[in-house]
């Protein structure tokens, strides 16, 4: 099995606070992996470590086959990242934003034009290339973010809460795009706290207080826990949350699920 992302006991502490606590994650190539958790559960910290923006306190990990501790420079050329916050330049045009990110990833003029054309056709942005980005509706800005993160054809796309404050139709469209990218071989690592949409993921993990409390396919997770939806499973996990500092003894079956990894 070839893994795009693999971590062993990855940990990040900020002083006395442990944001990410010994997580083991393995994501296969081309997989859409949902990385769930409540706000403050440690999702963004984990993503930042994987992208090389944050140095782990302990543990190991590889992304696209490169060590996150030593080879973050190589990792950065092979990943795309789209943050929960809209992070394009609102004063530049759609095309200027695309060209900017393309050039930063070393695309030459010819490749750049080609990719911009393909990508804007793929995402339906053709007609908007000349528009000032800040004047676009939210859903379109978000598509553009995805286009910018994907222009250099990364092996792995990290999407940090990409569907926050987006209407349901745009969200549905967005997930269609995600699956199209995945079918082309791109690994998708996506965080969300919308429990309804994560059913679209191939596999997912649920993070509670820095630890991974459950991991598996949506179907397996529901069956094993006897809950009808991921939403219910999530609420159950949050309620069973033990007092801070003590080891959760009763999460053993779920830990087994986590350790089982991809079958």
């Amino acid at each position: 099995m070839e893994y795009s992302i693999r971590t062993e006991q990855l940990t990040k502490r900020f002083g006395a606070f442990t944001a990410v606590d010994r997580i083991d994650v393995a994501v296969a190539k081309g997989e859409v992996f949902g990385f769930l958790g409540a706000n403050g559960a440690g999702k963004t910290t984990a993503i930042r470590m994987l992208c090389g923006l944050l140095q782990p306190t302990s543990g190991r990990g590889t992304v696209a086959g490169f060590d996150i501790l030593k080879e973050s420079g190589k990792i950065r050329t092979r990943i795309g990242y789209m943050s929960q916050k809209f992070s394009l330049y609102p004063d530049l045009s759609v095309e200027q934003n695309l060209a900017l990110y393309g050039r930063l990833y070393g695309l030459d003029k010819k490749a750049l034009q080609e990719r911009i054309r393909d990508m804007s056709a793929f995402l339906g942005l053709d007609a908007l290339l000349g528009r000032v980005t800040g004047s676009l509706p939210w859903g379109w800005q978000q598509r553009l973010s995805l286009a910018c993160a994907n222009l250099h054809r990364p092996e792995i796309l990290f999407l940090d809460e990409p569907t926050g404050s987006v209407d349901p139709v745009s969200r549905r469209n967005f997930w269609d795009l995600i699956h199209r990218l995945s079918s082309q071989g791109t690994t998708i690592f996506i965080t969300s706290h919308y429990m309804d949409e994560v059913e679209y993921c191939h596999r997912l993990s649920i993070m509670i207080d820095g630890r991974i409390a459950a991991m598996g396919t949506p179907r397996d997770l529901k069956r094993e826990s006897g809950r009808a939806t991921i939403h219910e499973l999530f609420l159950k996990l949050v309620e069973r949350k033990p007092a801070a500092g003590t080891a959760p003894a009763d999460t053993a079956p779920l830990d087994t699920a986590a350790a089982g990894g991809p079958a």
Partner: protein
Amino acid sequence: MMSRLRIRTIALKEVRHILRDWQTLVVVLVMPVMMMFLYGYALNADAKEIPVMIELPSPGPEARTMADKIDASQLFAVKGIVNAASDPAELFKLHGIKALFRFPPGFARELRRAGGARVQVLIDGSDPNLGTIIRNAAEPMLMGATLEVLNARQPKVLDLRTLILYNPEQRSALFFVPGLMAIILLMISALLTSVAVAREKELGTMGQLLVSPLHPLEIIVGKIIPYVFLAAVDGFLVLAVGRIAFGVRIAGNPWFLGLCSLAYIFTALSIGLLISTLVKRQQHAMFAALGATMMPTVLLSGFIFPVISMPLPLRIISHIIPATYFLEIVRGVILKGVGLRELWAPLLILCAEGIALMSVAIRKFKVKL
């Protein structure tokens, strides 16, 4: 490894931001010119027609001559002559005069007496500068008038000859052009860079840049380049307006001045960058940059108040801020026409400060993001 292509990409993007935000650009280009004219006319130390009054209890011919002399001078405008001022302070309040010349009733008699005549000059001290001007002018003027009245000549005891070097006409333009150069370059550079970086943090684009293959140093260099140009344009504007509108010529080598200005701009950009690593919002960056550059530069660099007359703690601060050294260089080159041989020390300190500040800023920039 630094990539020229990536740096150019960032620099080009920054230029686009600058051109899009044309309001800011107008401010950046118009402000220096406006400041030049404001300082040029407001800082004019050549006082004229200061309103004064004369108290003349017994108007004999001698006293009359004296009063005429006062009125005839360019410096004073006599608003009235009173017989006797029972309450001098009332005259100041009522007529808005700045000085009152009080001649005694027996002025004519006193003049011919051995001890000489006594004339009192009351000066409004609420504006110390003006007060000093009046005081300095009053005595020689009255003395000259008295000698004329007596038809006498002053015995020659001491022949004091002062010669003012570098700014013989004591024109204030020669004084404020270097000062404004120091202020405007520092303010523009520090303010614009700190705000530009803080804006990227606010937008979240900084994080986006940092997950790209860009090296943090490439971001810094790319972002800074357009502002070096903008600051240089402002420096040129100050010199051009100084030359055209106020007749200030550069006595020394303009290329040397340009080189020193670049060193100063570099230092100023480092300050802006350092500020931007400490704040998260554009607004905070703006206040911090203005506070850290404007105030100390205006008050402590020697622009307005001479460094020599400051108490020790302030003198120490003034020897830390880069504007002090740049001011020394600009005054040296523009007024005295000196060059590297005389100014290597301040230039060296300026460069050292710039390099030190930039290294700290780069280190903090990497750690923070």
